[in-house]
């Protein structure tokens, strides 16, 4: 069996219909468990105090804001190279989810930054590249809505996605090569010395799993919707011609 079989809209809808209830339930379970664990059963940090509880929302949201764009990049490339409609529609479906995660990351970052850095916002490399990524999300969604022909919209949004990927990668790696920023290094690291303490790490891991599963569930549902909407437009166009 090949992965390209899922480029068939009927096969995609049938498969995701089967997976959606399980993925959705796992997402709710992980999110509730992780957030309740993190909020109620973890101690305050010796430096950040209770604001450390924001990490359970901020880190997974920021991680998925970038990963959503990377997923859109992959599906856009598939569209450009192989012209599979489902992949272009999956990229379209993922954009509002990624944009929402970006807003969550920006909002929780500002709420954390005010008491910790003494400011809601700073033109720091990571923060700025994240803001630009959010603007790319808005531009991407606006471009899809602005163009009537689905294939032309998919072509142009795919190119926009390729350009925006620079900022998605910049958001992830800005802290590594710009030393003058306010934003601290990555909270997650394979290096045990650098990584957050285990007491915060385990609930954070559950929250990250919850955000990933939520993203997958929403992309499945929204891609199905985009496939159906495209079929409706095609049928209406055919009706109009006859």
């Amino acid at each position, binding site marked *: 069996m090949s992965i390209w079989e899922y480029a068939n809209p009927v096969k995609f809808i049938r498969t995701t219909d089967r997976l959606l209830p399980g993925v959705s339930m796992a997402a709710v379970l992980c999110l509730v468990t992780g*957030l309740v664990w993190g909020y109620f059963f973890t101690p305050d940090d010796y430096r950040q105090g*209770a604001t450390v*509880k924001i990490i359970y929302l901020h880190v997974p949201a920021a991680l998925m804001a970038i990963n959503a764009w990377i997923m859109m990049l992959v599906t856009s490339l598939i569209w450009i190279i192989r012209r599979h409609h489902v992949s272009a529609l999956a990229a379209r479906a993922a954009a509002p989810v990624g944009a929402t995660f970006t807003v969550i990351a920006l909002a929780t970052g500002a709420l954390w930054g005010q008491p910790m850095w003494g400011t809601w916002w700073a033109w720091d490399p990571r923060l700025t590249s994240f803001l630009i990524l959010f603007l790319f999300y808005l531009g991407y969604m606006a471009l899809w809505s602005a163009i009537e022909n689905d294939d032309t919209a998919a072509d142009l949004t795919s190119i926009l996605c390729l350009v925006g990927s620079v900022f998605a990668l910049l958001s992830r790696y800005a802290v590594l090569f710009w030393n003058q920023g306010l934003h601290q290094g990555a909270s997650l690291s394979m290096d045990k010395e650098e990584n957050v303490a285990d007491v915060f790490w385990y609930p954070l891991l559950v929250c990250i799993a919850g955000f990933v599963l939520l993203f997958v569930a929403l992309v499945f549902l929204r891609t199905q919707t985009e496939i159906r909407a495209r079929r409706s437009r095609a049928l209406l166009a055919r009706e109009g011609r006859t």
Partner: protein
Amino acid sequence: MMPDLGKYAFAVLASYGVSLALIVVLVALSIRRARRVRAELEKIEERVKRHG
């Protein structure tokens, strides 16, 4: 049971409030649109089938 958030109560509660509200709105809108589009397609397919 309830953690004492002290002087950071606003930052923490606002973060949870804003994030959960955004997630709930996103999920609700996605489900609502999915249902609407599905019903529309069924109606169109039914019409197309009737009229050949």
